[in-house]
């Protein structure tokens, strides 16, 4: 961080004193205007707030011509601003750093030394593909603002830049490793030659469809609940009718039943639409998925309209998540996520995120290969997990029950006496809730294996989070006096990509894990980056 600002200052001085340096700054190709326009449009689209008033405005104007004119005007504005951004954007790759000047009104200058660059990724958006152009995305390790897009470069040029950066980083690494080796000519050549990529995994269309379906778990669960509820309601009605009770008549007349049915079918429709969208989204972003591996890095190619090429050094991986939802469990698939350093709130997993690599819907064998390749981890199944205390479940179940009781008492006293069915209706929901709590209690677990901390959690599905013990940034133990009495405590482990907590473990285990993590972190000189 300090490093960057100092560089920035230095550069400002230099460019002020020596005009030769600033003369070397070059513009992008004019095609970059396309990139800037697309960027603005994407921002507009992702900001629904901006779209809604615009659409409303268009809707209000009665004349088609006026509406067209407005649309054209907006479009012209976007292109104009893109053109301005293009005109004021210049970059320079010099002195082992990437320098960028941009900004129409407020000037910005960024200096990103090679050694601070985390990834160099390629994007081939559909509008550049016929031209054979590429957008190079350079990611600094510092913060979110250290992101550089060099749009519309020739592919060769892009590859040259990437090679330059990678060669520098490989070289400096090998210098650190052993100076002698670098000085001998042969050693240098060996170290500097680009690593051979090995194709590790591809994903077919059916895999992506599966991924699209399972990734929309919220909606699918809702749908399942709706179906279950519908059936249960039917059963209750017939059952109670056989007892001579008529809940249907008590709760609702024919009209409201029709309303309920209408609402139900509307929900089903919505679920189908959203599931369809999700599958489409999955295909758009992961089409032609290819995962390549080399000695020290992963490379992913993916995308239907925009081709992405994402590079990630294995040493940058902070944690590996193996996610399985209940639908994944049924289908025997897993989603593997390699997490890198991330800033701010955690990004949504999946679409378009470059800070992590997601391998969609892989089979169990591949998962083991992947985790082994990334962290040289053992098979997940072979690990023995320390479970958490049953007191966790009891505590949550008690709290939940009290909450439900309070709610039902309030309902009962306010809506009394006609709708006491509502109180009964809470009972199955409470049962399901407590069951889910039980499941989640059963899922929690923690294991230590060969330098790795592995956390298991989930409710109906299972997630495994693998963290190299020497990469922790911070550890935390917390407990209440009650937990203390039962020799229990919770642990939180923070790495640069996320924070993972496990509640209600035996205190002895928590102490052991913390001491182990600290030992691994503090006794070695291994870099976490």
């Amino acid at each position, binding site marked *: 961080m300090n490093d960057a600002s100092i560089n920035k200052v230095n550069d400002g001085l230099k460019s002020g004193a020596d005009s030769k340096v600033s003369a070397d700054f070059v513009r992008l190709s004019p095609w970059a205007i396309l990139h800037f326009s697309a960027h603005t449009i994407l921002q507009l689209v992702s900001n629904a707030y901006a779209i809604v008033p615009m659409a409303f405005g268009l809707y209000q104007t009665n004349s088609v011509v006026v509406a067209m004119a407005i649309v054209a005007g907006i479009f012209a504005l976007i292109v104009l601003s893109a053109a301005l951004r293009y005109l004021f954007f210049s970059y320079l790759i010099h002195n082992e750093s990437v320098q960028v000047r941009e900004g129409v009104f407020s000037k910005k200058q960024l200096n990103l030394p090679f050694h601070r660059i985390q990834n160099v990724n390629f994007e081939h958006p559909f509008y550049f593909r016929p031209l054979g152009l590429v957008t190079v995305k350079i990611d600094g390790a510092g913060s979110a603002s250290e992101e550089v897009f060099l749009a519309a470069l020739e592919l060769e040029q892009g590859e040259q830049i990437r090679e330059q950066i990678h060669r520098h980083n490989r070289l400096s690494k090998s210098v650190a490793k052993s100076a002698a080796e670098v000085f001998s000519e042969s050693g240098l050549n060996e170290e500097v030659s680009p690593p051979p990529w090995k194709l590790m995994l591809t994903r077919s269309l059916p895999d992506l469809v599966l991924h699209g379906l399972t990734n929309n778990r919220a909606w699918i669960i809702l749908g399942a609940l709706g179906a279950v509820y519908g059936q249960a309601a039917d059963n209750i009605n017939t059952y109670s009718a056989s007892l001579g009770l008529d809940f249907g008549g008590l709760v609702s007349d024919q009209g409201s039943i029709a309303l309920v049915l209408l609402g139900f079918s509307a929900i089903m429709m919505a679920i189908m639409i959203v599931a369809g969208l999700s599958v489409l989204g999955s295909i758009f972003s992961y089409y032609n998925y290819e995962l390549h591996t080399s000695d020290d890095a992963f490379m992913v190619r993916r995308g239907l309209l925009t081709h992405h090429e994402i590079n990630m050094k294995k040493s940058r991986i902070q944690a590996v998540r193996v996610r399985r939802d209940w639908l994944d469990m049924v289908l025997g698939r897993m989603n593997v996520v390699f997490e890198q350093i991330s800033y701010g709130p955690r990004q949504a997993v999946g679409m378009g995120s470059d800070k992590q690599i997601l391998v969609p819907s892989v089979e169990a064998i591949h998962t083991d290969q992947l985790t082994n390749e990334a962290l040289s981890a053992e098979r997940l199944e072979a690990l023995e997990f320390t479970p958490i205390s049953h007191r966790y479940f009891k505590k949550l179940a008690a709290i939940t029950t009290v909450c439900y009781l309070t709610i039902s008492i309030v309902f009962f006293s306010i809506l009394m006496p006609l709708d006491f069915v509502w109180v009964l209706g809470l009972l199955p929901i409470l049962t399901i809730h407590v069951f889910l709590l039980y499941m989640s209690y059963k899922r929690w677990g923690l294991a230590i294996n060969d330098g790795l901390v592995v956390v298991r959690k989930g409710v109906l599905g299972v997630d495994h989070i693998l963290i190299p013990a020497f990469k922790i*940034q911070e550890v935390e133990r917390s407990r209440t006096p009650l937990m203390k009495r039962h020799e229990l405590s919770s642990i939180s482990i923070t790495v640069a990509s996320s924070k993972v907590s496990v509640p209600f473990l035996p205190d002895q285990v928590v102490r052991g894990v913390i001491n182990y993590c600290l*030992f691994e972190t503090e006794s070695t000189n291994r870099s976490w980056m």
Partner: protein
Amino acid sequence: MPFSNLQVTLSDLPTFENIEFSNLDPSYARLVCLVVALVECLIAGIGITIWWLAEIPEQLKEQASSIWGPVLLFMAIFPLYVFKAKRAIKYSIRDHDLVLKSGLFWQKEVIQPIRRIQHVELTRGPLEKRIGLANISLFSAGTSGATFTIPGLRLITAARIRRYVLQMERS
């Protein structure tokens, strides 16, 4: 015992749980307690002003007066609680990490390895400045700016900790 792999090495590892802790400067807890009490008085003052000036229906006034007791009790207890909680904060510095202990009910121990610290910040509010206190914040690369802050230190102590951390980081 599913934990056997660790148990073997565990006995050899340095432990964090049996270390000596230092207290914060006692004036810090008093200061925070005082500030909380002052803020309470301010809020109470505003409340009373509204009570006198605004046209509130008699019925509402009667209803509101029934919760006076608990509110007053809370207002009396809260500064005391804050005082106790601030008094419970303790810290410790080891060769390779810093430990911060806090919490009355939810007791927390956070351990920050020095090797992972990216930068150090010393901050002082106007009141803290007046009584010679300072806070030291250690930033690591954890998500959402994971910070490790030891509040209420004497300025000399804070500066000494900063020097130590920077020294250890470099070596």
